[in-house]
């Protein structure tokens, strides 16, 4: 068990999402940054989809109740064990009574804490992910509170061989406050003025304070519609860039609703979605147009990295 002493700004239990329920109006949920989530699990020898803690910005403080091995990946939120700086992107042993703390944000926005065997809150509709709108998953479908006890698999760690195992440096992402993401145009690009499409790809947009797991809300040069911003409601995808009447883009993330009625100028490619999980209010985003073939090629390359890592024996 981990005992939550301070929950921080917003900490939830997440796996890779609740699939198959969008047609009923449930959000997919899951970790906002799939890359950091999967790496955290690989480091401790878990299946990549195992449930982890997603820590936002700062403030989580928890006590370990049973010796285990954890890994922390994602944004650098100043991770300490018993007030001593500890290594991210590596497997670290923790003992009974240890205090794990995230005291502040140095880079990125969301950190992931994996634990050997995974966090074992009950599965609800096929997933352990917290959905605060559907009020399911995680701990009672809500963000963690002081006093929550977070269960993990009670298994012996004597045979765990991977302690201090770290990711190769070149695989650790650098989170900056200027982010460039690649985009496929459409599906409603014809709804926008041609000049506005040029504006979209040549401007930098600032992340607003209303940004959350549902969407990354941006502010910048107005993207103008030819005649209107409304469409007949249709399904929304991960990374969809919606532009409502005010001309300010919103990029849909893991907590998105399933249906929307505004035009979408484009979609962020899958390989770049983790970058959007690591921006915070005030950061800036620019967009670059790519083809679908390029997007798929990048995705396959990234999967090769994962399969190489998976093939290491961590136990």
């Amino acid at each position, binding site marked *: 068990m981990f005992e939550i002493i301070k929950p921080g700004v917003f900490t939830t239990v997440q796996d890779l999402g609740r*699939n*198959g329920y*969008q*047609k*009923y*109006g*449930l959000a997919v949920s899951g970790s906002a940054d799939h890359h950091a989530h999967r790496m955290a699990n690989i480091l401790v020898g878990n299946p990549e989809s195992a449930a982890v803690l997603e820590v936002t910005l700062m403030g989580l403080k928890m006590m370990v109740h049973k010796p285990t091995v954890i890994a922390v990946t994602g944004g650098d939120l100043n991770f300490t064990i018993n007030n001593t700086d500890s290594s991210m992107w590596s497997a670290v042993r923790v003992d009974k009574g240890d205090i794990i703390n995230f005291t502040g944000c140095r880079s990125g926005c969301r950190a992931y804490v994996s634990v050997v065997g995974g966090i074992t809150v009950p599965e*609800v*509709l096929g997933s352990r992910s917290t959905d605060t*709108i*559907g*009020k*399911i998953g995680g701990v009672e479908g809500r963000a963690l509170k002081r006093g929550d006890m977070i269960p993990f698999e009670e298994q012996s760690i004597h045979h765990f061989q991977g302690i201090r195992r770290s990711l190769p440096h070149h695989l650790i992402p650098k989170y900056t406050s200027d982010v460039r993401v690649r985009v*496929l145009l*459409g*599906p409603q690009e014809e709804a926008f003025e041609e000049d506005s499409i040029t504006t979209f790809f040549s401007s930098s947009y600032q992340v607003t304070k209303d940004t959350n797991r549902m969407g990354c809300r941006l502010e910048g040069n107005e993207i103008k519609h030819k005649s209107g911003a409304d469409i*007949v*409601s*249709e*399904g*929304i*995808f*991960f*990374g*969809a860039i919606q532009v409502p009447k005010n001309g300010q883009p919103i990029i849909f993330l893991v907590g998105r*609703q*399933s*249906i929307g009625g505004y035009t*979408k100028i*484009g*979609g*962020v*490619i*899958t390989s770049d979605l983790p970058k959007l999980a690591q921006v915070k209010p005030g950061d800036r985003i620019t967009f670059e147009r790519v083809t*679908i073939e390029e*997007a*798929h090629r990048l*995705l*396959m390359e990234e*999967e090769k990295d994962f399969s190489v890592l998976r093939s290491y024996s961590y136990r």
Partner: protein
Amino acid sequence: MGRKFNYKASGDSAILMSLDEDINEKTNKRIVSLANRIERDADGYFEEVIIGFRTLLVQYNPLKVSYHSAVEKLTYLESVSGNSTEQERRHIEIPVLYGGEYGPDLDSVAQLNSLSPEEVIKIHSEASYLVYFLGFTPGYPFMGGMSKEIATPRLDSPRISIAPGSVGIANDQTGIYPVESPGGWRIIGQTPLQLYNFKKEQPFLLGAGDYVTFRVILNDEFNDIKKRVEEGSYVSTVKERN
């Protein structure tokens, strides 16, 4: 058979299939039956299908199938699912206690349409509604079929909290709130049924393509049904119909 679907890449892992037809029962039938067919034959290529008024958003796995092969497979499924529009549809009766504390806007809906509250209830409960699809919040039905006679604009300032089960009107749409949420719809009544309960084996009361009718109930029956719903002993009235 009607027109063919247009295919469009939506991001690098989804395809938007849209039908250039009117939003009606026939279009909905084609869309729902194709969605079922795609799910049945997903074969690991297709992960989820989201139904819209005249669209299907199909998520595919680009590590398993290229965009062009995915479109080819979908085009094939479209061609073979075209004539299966005769599937049976469910008809679900939703009991509603209209007016009073559960329907605080019934009077304003009546006044703005120069009707009596009784006439609003009669018009609302005599129609049959088609659930085009669910979305927006868990289990929320996008329904069509409401009479324009009771169409009413949203409230000027939305309520901070609306109870689950509330039945509302916004313009020419009627809807039911499955979960507590803020909202600007005019609330004319409440159903004791749960549209979304994740603890049940079937967590969602409604599905795309269902028909809904509202049955007028009074206080005693409302309380009785609510109690039985909470105990898990209430069985909704569902009829199959073509």
